[in-house]
């Protein structure tokens, strides 16, 4: 199987510190592939600093990896020709978090819809372009006559975000990277927008990478999930398994901290301060109630604990280490530092 877009041992670090000697890791040796033959919705969940936004920007080609590579149809993004680049842009699109910033205040909102029609030659005439745009707006539940011709400040955040989904719809990409698409939208509108995303996937076979810090929406929207902590993956797999029975201590802490809309008050999980100070090894060791001396010595690999899940914790070391090969079912390809990369 060939991946459409792939991250291969991609690392992104920034120079930091007084003399630029320290390196701040934004994403560490991350490998992940999107297979167009098996489209799915994968959620990438993590807090700020986990690396999820860096992951999105690398996949979109907005930033370049410090090490490793981002590949499109097997070719490194940095080496694509102009035509290849345009193809890439057509196939991989995004929906961003802030429905205010993505609009150029100088133009009417039509601009975000007419520009891709023009740049990607989606229509042969202006009338046809207009028709496509109106169709896309209707598909996300908006009325073209209420939207077209307006300036961004005249519309609500929810409307603007739905226009962005319509834009993605217009392009019919193979992959949509949705970076916190509903976090700045009112609660009552979130379900509508997420429903549109789900529909995009089901009706058009578009793979969606749903990046968020909100586990509840991730659970509702996605089939599989990647949990990130401080630039690495700590747990991955089928979303039902991971959310209902988390195996990594961080995931357990995360899920336990989420306030539920329920008459049951479950906010009782205690976060015990770990006794081990981590300098190397597992990044969660300093906060982990189950930390052992071996956790500080070396970072744990991802252990495959079931057909459709894996977690990076020494507590699970009786499970096999996840081999560098596509397992398909987990929808994730992980590679650990010490292992040689084998292309499946």
């Amino acid at each position, binding site marked *: 199987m060939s991946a459409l877009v792939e991250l291969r041992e991609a690392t992104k670090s920034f120079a930091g510190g007084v003399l630029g000697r320290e390196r701040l890791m934004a994403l560490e040796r991350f490998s992940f592939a999107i297979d167009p033959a098996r489209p799915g919705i994968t959620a990438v969940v993590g807090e700020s600093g986990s690396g999820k936004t860096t992951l999105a920007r690398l996949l979109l080609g907005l930033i370049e990896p410090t090490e490793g590579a981002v590949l499109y149809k097997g070719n490194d993004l940095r080496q694509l020709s102009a035509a290849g680049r345009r193809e890439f842009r057509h196939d991989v699109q*995004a929906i*961003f978090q802030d429905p205010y910033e993505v609009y150029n*205040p100088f133009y009417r909102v039509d601009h975000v819809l007419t*520009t891709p029609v023009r*740049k*990607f030659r989606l229509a042969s005439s202006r009338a046809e372009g207009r028709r496509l745009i109106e169709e896309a707006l209707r598909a996300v539940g908006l009325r073209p006559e209420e939207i077209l011709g307006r300036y961004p400040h005249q519309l609500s955040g929810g409307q603007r975000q739905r226009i962005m989904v319509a834009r993605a719809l217009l392009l019919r990409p193979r992959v949509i990277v949705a970076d916190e698409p509903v976090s700045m939208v009112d609660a009552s509108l979130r379900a509508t927008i997420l429903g549109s995303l789900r529909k995009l996937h089901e009706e058009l076979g578009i793979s969606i990478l749903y990046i968020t810090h909100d586990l509840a929406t991730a659970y509702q929207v996605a089939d599989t999930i990647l949990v990130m902590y401080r630039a690495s993956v700590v747990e991955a797999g089928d979303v039902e398994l991971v959310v209902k029975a988390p195996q990594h201590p961080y995931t357990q802490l995360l899920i336990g901290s989420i306030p539920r809309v329920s008459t049951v008050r479950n906010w009782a999980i205690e976060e015990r301060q770990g006794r081990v100070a981590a300098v190397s090894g597992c990044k969660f060791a300093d906060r982990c109630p189950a930390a052992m001396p071996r956790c500080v010595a070396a970072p744990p690999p991802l252990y495959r604990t079931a057909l459709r899940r894996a977690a990076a914790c020494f507590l699970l070391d009786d499970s096999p280490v996840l081999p560098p090969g596509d397992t398909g079912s987990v929808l994730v390809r992980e590679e650990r530092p010490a292992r040689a990369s084998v292309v499946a």
Partner: protein
Amino acid sequence: MLGYLRRNISLGVGIGLLGILVIFMVVGAFTVDTSAAQPLSVPALQPPSWDYPFGTDRQGRDLLAVMVAGTPLTLWIGFIAGFIGVGVAAVLAFTAAYYGGVVDTVIRSIADIGLTIPGLLVLIIIAVSLKGSLTVNQMAIIIALLAWLSPTRTIRSQVLTLRQRGYVEIARLNGMSGPEIIFRELVPNLLPYLAATLVSSVSAAILASVGLEVLGLGPVEAPDLGMTLYWVQFNAAIINGWWWWWTAPLGVIIIVFLGLFFLTAGLDEIANPRLRRTV
């Protein structure tokens, strides 16, 4: 529009003052005989009278004719220098800010070094080394050589604030190239700022040209405002009591600068929403 002018007082005053000048120049061009702006046209050193409303100077120029002929010349120098200066600055600034990296460092360093050199000194050296007399256009070019330095820095800062905006990233995702993003997405948002920079650049250019001319380094044959002031001090008009000779050009210059100043302030208010006092 008029309603807005009433709220944005600076803009209104600026347009008003410059409007008066324009009317003066246009009406004057039709009613006044501008050949009288040349020496030996009329009796010398006449105080203001019905025949010569602004009086005449020592070389026999009708000062009203001089004002009518000279004001456009001074403004012309300012506009040419200002436009070239801001035009070059804009190109350099957008390029430096959008592409960043080495390009940015090079452009920025050149501008910074240029800014530390005293501008007037450079202009004087250039003007003095040119053989033969200057034309008005050559004057404009000389000033334009320095006029691009400061706007490059300021426009660059403005572009930097816009570069990370979401709509620029969306534009990249649309497959737009660098120059396309600059022209379609960034420039339109900066138009008010560029307009304000242009006006202040014109103002600075006029000041520089008048300064050079007063020192005698300008186009000697042109009857423009700066040269008139040169002749004023060359002939010690102030000491000699020929007050009408220097009040006319001074008055016009004051109106020019005040007009441009208020215009800049008014445009600043449009460009910077935080300065706006009204919606």
